């Protein structure tokens, strides 16, 4: 059995090796560290084997003058950050976990707290070495085999196996982050708050309590951050911490409407009403959830799914309120949900972000989860938004097609490189009508 981070299993197993060229020769799908929540990294039913990349983690070159890095696709973001932070470099874009691989970062074209400013990870990728469906190995970049490059960035592993990634790291002035946070009392003010903060702060995002209703709908904590200047930072490096772990799968009833309500309210109240400013180490700033090993076991034996959508600017700022109203009406009990404003669309033909507001929430799996996702998707289609494939396990093909006018162009390119439809995943079988 094999599962994504949401712990909903399918039949399958990993084969692991240091040698990605060998490993991908017959593979139909690569899998990194399995941090996508749904079925993106899971194999199709008729070929239940995935090529596991994390042992292929060599750094091939690094230029300290330009920050240009080339590495094998299984290199973890944590190894990258920990290796280069002491030398004044950090990942140019990082999601909310660093337990992921370079290959997974490209395939999902991940975004982070700086999306409004620096775009997705793909914007910083200069070259990819790939094995395509017919077995050939070749390189692509924004200048060379452009179509393949654009279809692969955000292409969820369906256009070819990524063997090596070349990208530019960001130069940082110190090894510490200046973080500010404040309480926000409703969703409209949240959206304004994000916009305002984004002008001055490279990193912004918010946690909202999606169980509060009425005038408190969408209250939460807005977080902002930037790298500390050398004179603000303590000398020396932050020390990596030991992490506690959820030792076993908790029973399903632990996460329910009342515990979640209590948790969310406490999270809000624990923050003082005034703006709080601190100097923090980058790992606690960017990856608070990584501090607890196996936190996904908290949601019980049936697992959970994450729902993430972006509601475009064109839908007006009322869209986020309509989304949260629908959610609270349907009683989707989520712990904190994450809200973030997205900047411009990037080069990836199927990448998730576009200008607007992104909302992400965890949904423990219950009998009505499919109905809840359907209802949220109906709203997202109406608002002309879209969902994030790296999180998805329940979206129906018709909804996805309605959200993705770009799908046709991407599919054309994909077919050109893989006419027989060899490369596929459980997700592409479910969503894109690939053969099982």
């Amino acid at each position, binding site marked *: 059995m094999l599962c994504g981070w949401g712990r909903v299993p399918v039949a399958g197993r990993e*084969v*692991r*090796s*240091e040698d990605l060229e060998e490993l991908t020769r017959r593979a139909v799908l690569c899998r990194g560290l399995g941090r996508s929540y749904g079925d993106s990294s899971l194999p199709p039913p008729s070929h239940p084997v995935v090529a596991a990349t994390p*042992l292929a983690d*060599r*750094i*091939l*070159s*690094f230029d*300290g003058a330009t920050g240009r890095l080339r590495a094998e696709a299984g290199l973890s973001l944590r190894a990258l950050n920990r*290796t280069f932070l*002491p*030398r004044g470099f950090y990942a140019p874009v990082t999601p909310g976990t660093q337990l992921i691989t370079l290959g997974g970062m490209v395939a999902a074209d991940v975004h982070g707290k700086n999306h409004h400013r620096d775009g997705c990870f793909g914007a910083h990728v200069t070259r990819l070495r790939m094995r395509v469906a017919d077995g050939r190995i070749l390189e692509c970049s924004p200048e060379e085999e452009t179509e393949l490059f654009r279809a692969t960035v955000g292409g969820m592993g369906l256009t070819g196996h990524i063997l090596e990634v070349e990208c530019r790291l960001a130069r940082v002035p110190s090894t510490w982050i200046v973080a500010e946070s404040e309480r926000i009392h409703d969703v409209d003010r949240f959206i304004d708050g994000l916009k305002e903060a984004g002008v001055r702060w490279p990193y912004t995002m918010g946690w909202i309590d999606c169980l509060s209703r009425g005038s408190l709908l969408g209250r939460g904590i807005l977080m902002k951050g930037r790298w500390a200047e050398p004179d603000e930072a303590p000398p020396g490096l932050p020390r990596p911490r030991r992490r506690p772990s959820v030792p076993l799968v908790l029973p399903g009833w632990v996460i329910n409407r009342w515990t979640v309500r209590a948790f969310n309210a406490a999270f809000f109240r624990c923050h003082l009403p005034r703006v709080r400013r601190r100097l923090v180490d980058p790992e606690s700033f960017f990856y608070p959830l990584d501090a607890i090993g196996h936190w996904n076991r908290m949601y019980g034996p049936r697992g959970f799914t994450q729902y993430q959508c972006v509601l475009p600017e064109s839908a007006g700022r009322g869209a986020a309120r309509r989304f949260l109203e629908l959610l609270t009406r349907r009683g989707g009990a989520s712990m904190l949900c994450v809200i973030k404003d997205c900047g411009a669309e990037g080069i990836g033909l199927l990448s998730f972000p576009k200008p607007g507001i992104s909302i992400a929430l965890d949904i423990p799996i219950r009998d009505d989860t499919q109905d809840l996702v359907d209802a949220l998707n109906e709203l997202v289609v109406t608002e002309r938004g879209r969902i994030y494939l790296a999180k998805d396990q329940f979206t129906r093909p018709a909804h996805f097609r309605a959200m993705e006018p770009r799908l046709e162009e991407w599919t054309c390119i994909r077919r050109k490189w893989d006419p027989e439809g060899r490369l596929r995943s459980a997700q592409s079988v479910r969503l894109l009508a690939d053969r099982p």
Partner: protein
Amino acid sequence: MKVAFLGATRGMGRSLSRLMAARGDELFLLGREPAGLERSARDLEARAGRGSVGVAVCDLEQPAGFAAALDAAEAGLGGLDAVVVTAGVFATQDVLEQDPERARRILEVDFTDTVTFCEHARRRLLARGGGTLVVFSSVAGERARKPVVLYGAAKAGLTRYLEGLDHRFHAQGLRTVCVKPGFVKTSMTDGLPAPPFAGELDEVARVVLRAIDRGQPVVYAPPIWRWVMLVVRALPRSIMRRAGF
């Protein structure tokens, strides 16, 4: 520390060599395949951010090349404080029973060739007044078990040899570290069902490095395997005949 390292291209050797490079040890890599060696050397240089890592070809199945490979290492490093051997091969008992030639090769590589290599290394370390010889054996050499009869026998022999080196040369300054990994998730164990207490690469590397620094003659990695093997060694023959592990 100036270290000649046989087996840094993959698995536990890769992780251990990275820890050593990161803290400033000087490394020279030995291995059977030049392109893979070069890539691993570049990886270590990039991670350490300083120094350069030399390489030379050394195949355990070609003992005639051992002397030249260690010459190159000593010359490249300008000295030699430690030799680490993580290289080794594995196959399950079922596979080896079907393939006698492969069984012969595993016995040869994991015992005779490894011991021959260690003899070269130990002579050079002693000639310099002492040093550390680190060799990866296995918990499979602790008690005969059905799935690893042949491999276990080779590792049992290797363990005894290393114990003997320690007895014989400790007074002359040779520190022998016999590493006994439990089940560790590397490509060597790919496809095998992971037992309880399966180890992760980084953890194993940290445990082994600490043992090297202390000159500990025997180290189990992860450490829990010491207790697991204490129990397994105590099991009566009647149980071992019936047990599947």
